[in-house]
């Protein structure tokens, strides 16, 4: 079996930590690796889905923002913030069509890539891949449904609270955040369909209330229960008056 990696066993072990690949045997994982190239993307590299050459990518390290952009206004909405063990573009893998998304490397990225057609052929021969792939796809669809629901049903404050709660590290007593802890206010705005000034104003307000701490550009939740109330309270209000005409939405 051919391999193109300095330490394919280490790469396989790294992939095994991802739910997408955890059910695959060592032999299957190594066979899969022989179909992939290793790529790195420099922090800040930004390409459209069509420019990414119809490739299926798996992230080995770093964060990738996947979003949609309005070319006329330059406004962007972030659909996914992917990290180690995630894959993109799974929709193109399913239907074989280029995706109209924009890919933005938020760190130096290390990736595996293979042409979509080759990935599809490999999956045909290894249907066991679907044991991990289908639940992964389900989680991504749930996340998209959450984003759509938040945008349609909640005001900016609630959306921001819900976004932060989604990334709170519950294993950590300090309630630090995963993935989004060091993102700019503009990037956070893009994740909730808002803009930098609104996010900045809201975070300052919560900081004064002692709900969060922002230290050296890193966010930490100080009062988790208070943040939960923000998310629930506004959800409750929105449910009561869904079309009141007096939207609290700042954007």
């Amino acid at each position, binding site marked *: 079996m051919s391999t*193109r990696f*300095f330490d394919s066993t280490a790469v396989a072990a790294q992939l095994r930590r991802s739910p997408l690949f955890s059910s695959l045997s060592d032999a299957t994982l190594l066979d899969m690796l022989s179909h992939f*190239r*290793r790529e*790195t993307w420099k*922090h800040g*590299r930004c390409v459209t889905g069509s420019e990414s050459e119809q490739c299926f990518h798996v992230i080995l390290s770093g964060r990738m923002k996947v979003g949609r952009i309005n070319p006329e206004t330059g406004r962007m909405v972030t659909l996914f913030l992917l990290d180690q063990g995630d894959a993109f573009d799974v929709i193109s893998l399913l239907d074989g069509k280029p995706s109209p998304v924009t890919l933005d490397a938020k760190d130096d990225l290390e990736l595996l890539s293979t042409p979509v057609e080759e990935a599809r052929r490999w999956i045909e021969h290894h249907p066991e891949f679907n044991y991990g792939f289908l639940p992964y796809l389900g989680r991504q669809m749930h996340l998209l449904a959450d984003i759509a629901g938040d945008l349609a049903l909640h005001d900016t404050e609630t959306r921001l609270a819900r976004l932060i709660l989604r990334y709170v590290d519950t294993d950590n007593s300090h309630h630090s955040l995963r993935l989004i802890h060091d993102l700019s206010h503009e990037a956070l705005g893009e994740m909730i369909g808002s803009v930098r000034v609104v996010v900045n104003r809201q975070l300052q307000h919560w900081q004064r209330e002692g709900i969060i701490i922002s230290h050296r550009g890193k966010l930490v939740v100080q009062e988790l229960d208070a943040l939960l109330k923000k998310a629930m309270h506004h959800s409750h209000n929105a449910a009561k008056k869904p079309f009141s005409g007096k939207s609290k939405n700042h954007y």
Partner: protein
Amino acid sequence: MVDKNSCAALYPTHEQAEEAIRVLQKAAFDIKKVSIVGKGYHQKEHPVGFYNTGERVKFWGVQGAFWGNVWGLLFGAAMFWIPGLGPVVIAGPLVVSLVGALEGVVAVGGLSALGAALYSIGIPKNSIIRYETALKSDHYLIIVHGNQKEVERAHDVLAANKPTDVAIHLS
């Protein structure tokens, strides 16, 4: 200006590295866009040096024939003593980036001059550490510079030539 996209491959012997360059040449790659880095000598094999005889630079040492052939093919040649790595022999466009790093044009925290040169052409720190480790254990690093399509094609050509590692770096 060196392209900021590249394909980098590691080979354990100078014979394999030279073969890889010839395979790229046969596959009609612009050989002026190919760089090679290697230590170029072994502890027990010195003396080592290089000198100018008219138009050609010649390498003096056990691997003289290899570096002579490589310098005949590639664009630019240099030999530097880099702390932590020792004498490093380079050919190709990377020479310009390394000179820039040595002159302080490129300064990247925690990286050697070679690391800074690699960083300046779009190779991230994690990969640089891997390449420097391999160079210390006498591997040869071949880098093909170019646009995305060129480096992807280079990857497929080099991958078929049994490197110990091959990767594409996009900026």
